[in-house]
């Protein structure tokens, strides 16, 4: 009885951790500004979350061959996520989809949302440029 309670508790903990990683992957897919960033967030976080969910589900099974099936399924998803991320990113790069560079600001963002801070930065830069143009003649 106590052992069953422990196993159930461990399943709950593993499933909650797995749900956290799935949530992280979804938030990354929705919020990151770039195709490459989204691939990075989604493929890694979701594969890890699926690993936790698989471990939690495997604790509830009795037979060894079913646990082996789940382990094989997780390994398949892991290798598939890595492969899919690679082929999508390399094909996008070959087609000229520009990744966002560090320090380049959000000018190259594929997302239409521009937050207030970068808009302020842009206006300040414009003022500075106008000031320099005003001084030079």
């Amino acid at each position, binding site marked *: 009885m106590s052992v069953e309670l422990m196993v159930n508790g461990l399943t709950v903990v593993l499933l909650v951790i797995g749900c956290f990683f799935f949530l992280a992957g979804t938030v990354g*897919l929705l919020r990151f500004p770039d195709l490459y960033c989204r691939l990075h967030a*989604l493929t890694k976080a979701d594969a890890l979350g699926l690993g936790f969910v698989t471990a939690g*589900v495997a604790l509830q099974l009795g037979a060894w061959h079913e646990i082996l099936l789940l382990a094989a399924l997780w390994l398949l998803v892991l290798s598939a996520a890595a492969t899919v991320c690679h082929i999508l990113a390399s094909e996008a790069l070959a087609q000229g989809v520009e990744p966002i560079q560090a320090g380049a600001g959000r000018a190259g963002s594929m997302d239409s949302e521009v937050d207030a801070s970068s808009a302020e930065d842009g206006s300040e830069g414009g003022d500075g440029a106008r000031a320099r143009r005003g001084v030079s003649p």
Partner: protein
Amino acid sequence: MTAFLLGVAIFLLANVAAGLVRVIRGPTQADRVVAAQLFGTTGVAILLVLSVAMDARPLRDVALIFALLAVVISVAFVKRGWVRAPGQPSRAEPSLPREEP
């Protein structure tokens, strides 16, 4: 325990529903395929959790099929479905140099 498992399944289903926003807004086709990857992985997790909650063993085999089909989607998209801009041949299938007459 069953109620908790069903709650986990509903939470993962909410994740899928949130991923639909990226399908609608995604500026390129590739973003939508990335969202399809989310559906594949999350669908596998939902089926695994439901197979325990409902004590339905065949759902685990269905989850295996889902994992395989999610790979096929992306490979088919990269090889066939991605509409390429003119003048930018794919690296996977380089165009032959045109012979001068």
